[in-house]
């Protein structure tokens, strides 16, 4: 609508000669269809596509998974725990592949499941990165990432639980025998726990990404109508 409506139809109000108009017409006398009131709305800006938050979240999840995989890999080469022995004996040190003591002929090789978990975490992170360019990889990437996170949880939980329980057993032994043997948690277990929480943090963007993808798709369909 370009001016006030009158019913019944009548001539629009005019300004007497010599009296300046209260609202000069924009564009001068050549302007047409001008009337006092609200200024015309600016032309609509071209519609911007909604931000692809799902892709950003997948990148975040990929980064977290890669960090968790690298941490688990480093943990394979660090000390798992160390026991200060009594009576001046050399300390007992256990890594993910060997130990310096005599815990049976075969040491506990924690490194084998740790390497498998690290590989799953890294593969999940890489697949999530690649899924930015290939949407068909998204399902596989999410499944591998979920498996890696599950593995990180299991290994971190069980190994740290083992070391914690061993420390408790040592404390009981110290109290019984009145000796002082302390267990120091090694960097390998610390890194495993950091990796566990980093991998768990990746689950949040991993779950939110498809939800936001669906919201974005709905918004795109709504904008097209």
């Amino acid at each position, binding site marked *: 609508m370009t001016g006030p409506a009158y019913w019944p139809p009548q001539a629009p109000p005019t300004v007497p000669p010599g009296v300046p108009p209260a609202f000069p017409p924009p564009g001068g006398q050549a302007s047409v269809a001008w009337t006092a009131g609200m200024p015309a709305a600016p032309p609509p800006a071209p519609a911007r596509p909604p931000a692809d938050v799902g892709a950003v979240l997948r990148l975040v999840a990929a980064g977290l998974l890669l960090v968790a995989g690298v941490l688990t890999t480093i943990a394979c080469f660090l000390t798992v725990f160390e026991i200060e022995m009594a009576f001046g004996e050399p300390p007992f040190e256990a890594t993910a592949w060997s130990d310096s003591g005599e815990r049976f002929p075969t040491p506990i090789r924690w490194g084998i499941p740790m390497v498998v978990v690290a590989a799953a975490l890294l593969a999940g992170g890489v697949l999530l990165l690649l899924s930015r360019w290939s949407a068909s990889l998204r399902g596989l990437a*999410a*499944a591998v990432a*979920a*498996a890696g996170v*599950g593995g990180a949880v*299991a290994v971190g939980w069980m190994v740290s639980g083992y070391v914690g329980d061993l420390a408790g057993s040592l404390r009981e032994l110290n109290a019984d025998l009145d000796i002082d043997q302390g267990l120091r948690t090694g960097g390998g277990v610390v890194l495993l726990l950091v990796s566990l929480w980093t991998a768990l943090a990746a689950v949040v963007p991993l779950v939110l990404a498809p939800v936001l993808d669906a919201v974005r798709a709905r918004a795109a369909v709504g904008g097209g109508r």
Partner: protein
Amino acid sequence: MARRAPGAGTGATEMVGSTVAPPVPGSVRVLRPVRVRQVSAGLAVGAAVAGLLSLALSLDTTRFFFAGDEEPIQSFSRMADGGVVGDEDAAFDRLAWSGPTVLAVVLLVVAATAAVLAARTDRPGGWGSAAQQLAAGAAGLLVAATGVMVVFAASDVSAYEDGEGIVTRWGPAPAVLGAAAVLAVAAAVTARRGRAAVLATIGAGDAS
């Protein structure tokens, strides 16, 4: 399950299956539930049962003998919660696998439910994705838990070869947990497979 197909409007009743968006306006496709996704749900339930079973089994059993004696003077078996059955003082270090296993069982039950829901539509969609990722997460938990158990028990059992008067034998728990892991992997692989067979297309005014 008998239920009325929406949009039929003529008294036509769908005996099995579910419906999705009509191919043409005013008609409804009647689909058979996707069999492979129902199998995925069954695999997830089987994995959950095997995981639960491993909680009641032992990782290994160690027996201590005097030289020449056949009757052990001490013996203990390692159980899921890290405890031992038998002579508790003989086991100095302990390994627990109950936590990751229970978490995996919970994930598998939810994955089975999601797979059943995914079987009721043509495309797997959100339910299929959820079922796959939950089963994959559970498979990761079970594979890693089995791996940790195996490397721990391998160290224990190695005493059988060199130790004097010590015999350690494998228990059934690692094998059962490994089987649960394989079933969980199979459930994850099959959760998004298959297409629904169209049993019938019901029009707005007639059934075909």
